[in-house]
């Protein structure tokens, strides 16, 4: 995608709404430590791996927020911040700005406010988010689908067929699992669900992906009820 800065692409969104989102970013505790002033020198772009492959510029991000250009910040929040790989190579800024961390904050604002592009950017991660939030572990062995990984060679079929046995061959008992990466005990999972609930993570998920939210609520409410907690997520 090519960024055309000559037009105010999101002129349908009110200035007040854009300003509200920007103010939310500026109110973040990290803000004063990650944005000072921008020389527009381009050292961040020179160091940025994403900038080599996309029409993406960490300098633009720093410039837009330093200039408090509310319209431009909104455009970048929609069309640019998801192109960052969050490697923080840009942290070499002589003014000690961190375009990467500015992007972190802007992404959080985008997610909290359910911006359309945040939904799109996170769409492909639904399965992983579900796994992490429901089990506390990330990629599990049973996610290994042989057809999806031809580059792993023909043995991948054998391994997939007898996954359970292969896992039992691993020395640590906690890894004798197929549905999760490791054994997650009841106490951990209950605590995890309570954390998701109490810290507002579930609200974020609801704003971004309602389907995923509903599945997670089913799983969590049932498990929490069994453990004796009376928790509702609405």
């Amino acid at each position, binding site marked *: 995608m090519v960024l055309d800065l000559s037009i105010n692409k999101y002129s349908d969104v009110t200035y007040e709404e854009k300003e509200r989102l920007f103010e939310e970013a500026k109110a973040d505790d990290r803000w004063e430590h990650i944005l000072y*002033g921008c020389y*527009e020198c381009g050292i961040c772009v020179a160091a940025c791996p994403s900038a080599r492959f996309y029409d993406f510029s960490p300098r*633009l991000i720093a410039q837009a927020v*330093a200039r408090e250009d509310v319209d*431009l910040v909104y455009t970048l929040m929609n069309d640019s911040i998801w192109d960052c790989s969050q490697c923080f190579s840009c942290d070499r800024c002589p003014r000690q700005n961190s375009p990467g961390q500015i992007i972190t904050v802007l992404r959080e604002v985008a997610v909290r406010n359910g911006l359309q592009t945040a939904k799109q950017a996170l769409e492909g991660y639904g399965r992983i988010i579900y796994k992490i939030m429901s089990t506390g572990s990330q990629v599990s062995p049973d996610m290994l689908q042989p057809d999806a990984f031809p580059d792993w060679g023909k043995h991948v079929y054998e391994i997939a067929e007898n996954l359970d046995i292969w896992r039992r061959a691993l020395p640590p008992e906690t890894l004798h699992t197929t549905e999760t990466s490791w054994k997650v005990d009841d106490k951990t999972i209950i605590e995890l669900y309570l954390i998701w609930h109490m810290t507002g993570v579930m609200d974020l998920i609801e704003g971004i992906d309602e389907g995923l939210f509903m599945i997670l609520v089913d799983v969590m409410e049932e498990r929490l009820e069994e453990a004796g907690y009376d928790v509702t997520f609405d």
Partner: protein
Amino acid sequence: MANQNVLIIGGGVAGIEAAKGIADLGYKAILVEKRDRLGGNPDEQQYSVLTPDRRDASEALSDMMAPILDNENVDLMYNTIVTGASGSVGNFKVKAVSMGKEVEIEAGAVIVATGFSHFDPGRETQKYGYYEHDDVLTLTDAEKLLKEHKFVRPSNGEVPKRICFIQCVGSRDRQIGNEYCSKVCCGISSQQAIEVREQVPDCKVYIFYIDMRMYGYWENEIYWPAQEEFKVNYIKGIATEIVKKGDRLLVKGEDTTLRRPMEVEMDMVILAVGMEPSEGTKKMAEYFGLKQNKYNFIETIGGPLDTVSTTVPGVYAAGACTGPADLEDTVSAAGLAAMKALGSIRRNGNA
């Protein structure tokens, strides 16, 4: 025997500092000033604060001139204009009109401290409409408004909501003939921008520039605070013209680093005018036969290692009569000129 007195021409910052130096060393300084008071441009143009320490200009100048006001080693001659000169080191005879009367002043050495004048942006850069639009100002015009704490639009007396500075007006411009950088305007614009943000916090302030040049501590004392604390917006790109739009000014330029054309409405535009040699500087060069550079500033002959000696032995030049200078440069050069002037008298007096 050489005349032991030093004539200082010009009662601005350079002249005051030179006179103090001469007097402190136990010699007589004769300070001639065309106006009826000391202080030069900062006083005449009603500067608000000094750059870079942001001290109140009137107060700082009063403190600076106090030691020479009642000093038996300093003869102050106000309302005095030099009209001619003859003689050589150890024995200059300088003609002047003082309080309406013709006089002749004798001195062993001379320090020219006649300074600069601000570039008149209406003279050659009509593109900014300085004579045309009431709300197009120069840095000096803005100083007066800031000093009075009445930073309002001259056209209607309203408090501005959005203003900009345009840098390098009359400087770095081959078309005008002033190819040099005037050295102080970046810092002064930035400092005025800070003052505007302090006095009118709701006013957005933009600075359109070619390069921002704030060397040494001006970087962290002016530039960074302006940008980081006071949220002054620096945009690399110079306006090409200013036209009237309704009761505001439409500034046209390019936002170069964002690669987009820029047409923004402003309530006031402040032109960062540079320095040119003052009339007095040009006249002194003529009367004393001092070589001038192509811009008519007085040429100093020692390169970077001697910033005050002119082509005429016994005549020294200090401050902005030799080229764009900030206060630090000016005061340093004035002290050096005082020392060298006395040195020339002592060397020649014994010959």
